[in-house]
């Protein structure tokens, strides 16, 4: 095989790989496209006069997606946050045109539908009798990185945790089984996000008075492989 032939073969192989990789992400790409467009609309609300038309068009196009229940929890979170921003910006304006009122109604409907779809998921698990109530995260005094970057990184991690939890929980009947899977992932794959998710579940279970000491031992062991002391878990 000549050099040119070898290069062309490699070129074709790499192009095929990328084509298939993108094809696998087709649905996610479509969802992201919708979220990205909504985000752009929200950002340009202050400078565009026709934003009600833009948002109206977005709802018209994406309402079927909501019915299909095609969004992942992390994507739903994103949409809720953006719609909330849009709602806030609209309530800041004095206008109360019929078009704006219609958009408010749509925002409420999306919010309600997303919350209801989550309730259905929670009903499947008998292990969550009490709704989860998030606590305010502790403030850190560590000035090691710019605040905006640390917030963006945590936000990114938080989105991943949500998606990872959804993946692990889909075939499990009890939160303890999800915790077991998450700890295994942290132990065997040295997955840092799985370690954080495990710690979160353990703390949640602790507040619900579950017996958690065996899981704390496993968490400490897993933490050692990340260079942590394993003392503070």
């Amino acid at each position, binding site marked *: 095989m000549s*050099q*040119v032939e070898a*290069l*062309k073969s*490699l*070129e074709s192989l*790499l*192009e095929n*790989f*990328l*084509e298939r*990789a*993108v094809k696998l*992400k087709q649905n996610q*790409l479509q969802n*992201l*496209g919708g*979220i*990205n467009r909504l*985000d752009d609309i*929200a*950002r340009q609300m202050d400078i565009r006069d026709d934003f009600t038309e833009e948002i109206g068009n977005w709802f018209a196009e994406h309402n079927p997606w909501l019915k299909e229940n095609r969004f992942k929890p992390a994507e739903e979170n*994103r949409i809720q*946050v*953006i719609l909330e*921003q849009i709602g806030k910006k609209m309530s800041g304006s004095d206008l109360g045109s019929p078009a704006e009122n219609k958009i408010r109604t749509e925002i409420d409907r999306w919010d309600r539908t997303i919350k209801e779809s989550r309730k259905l998921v929670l009903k499947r698990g008998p292990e969550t009798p009490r709704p989860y109530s998030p606590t305010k995260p502790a403030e850190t005094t560590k000035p090691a990185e710019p605040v905006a970057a640390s917030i*963006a*990184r945590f*936000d*990114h991690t938080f989105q991943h945790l949500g998606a990872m939890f959804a993946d692990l929980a889909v075939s499990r009947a009890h939160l303890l089984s999800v915790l077991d899977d998450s700890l295994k992932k942290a132990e065997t794959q040295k997955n*840092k996000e799985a370690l954080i998710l495990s710690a979160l579940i353990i703390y949640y279970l602790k507040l619900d008075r579950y017996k958690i000491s065996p899981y704390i031992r496993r968490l400490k062991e897993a933490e050692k492989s990340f260079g942590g002391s394993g003392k503070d878990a």
Partner: protein
Amino acid sequence: MLNTFEKAYFAALQALQRKDYSKAADYFKQAAPHFKDNKEFNLLHETTGLLLAVKEQLAAVDVDDDKIKIEETFSNG
């Protein structure tokens, strides 16, 4: 709200869909600081870079071939 890194990753994937590998590489580069621990991102980023390098190499070989043909034409002509 989506941050600029996420928007860049999304734009990179869209560019890959259009087979605009050069643009995709630019967007991957912009998104890289935020996704440096994301294995899937790194795989796509590195593969795109490798593909561009291969294409560059192929283009260079083609140019060399053209040069030889021109030289031969002159020497025999």
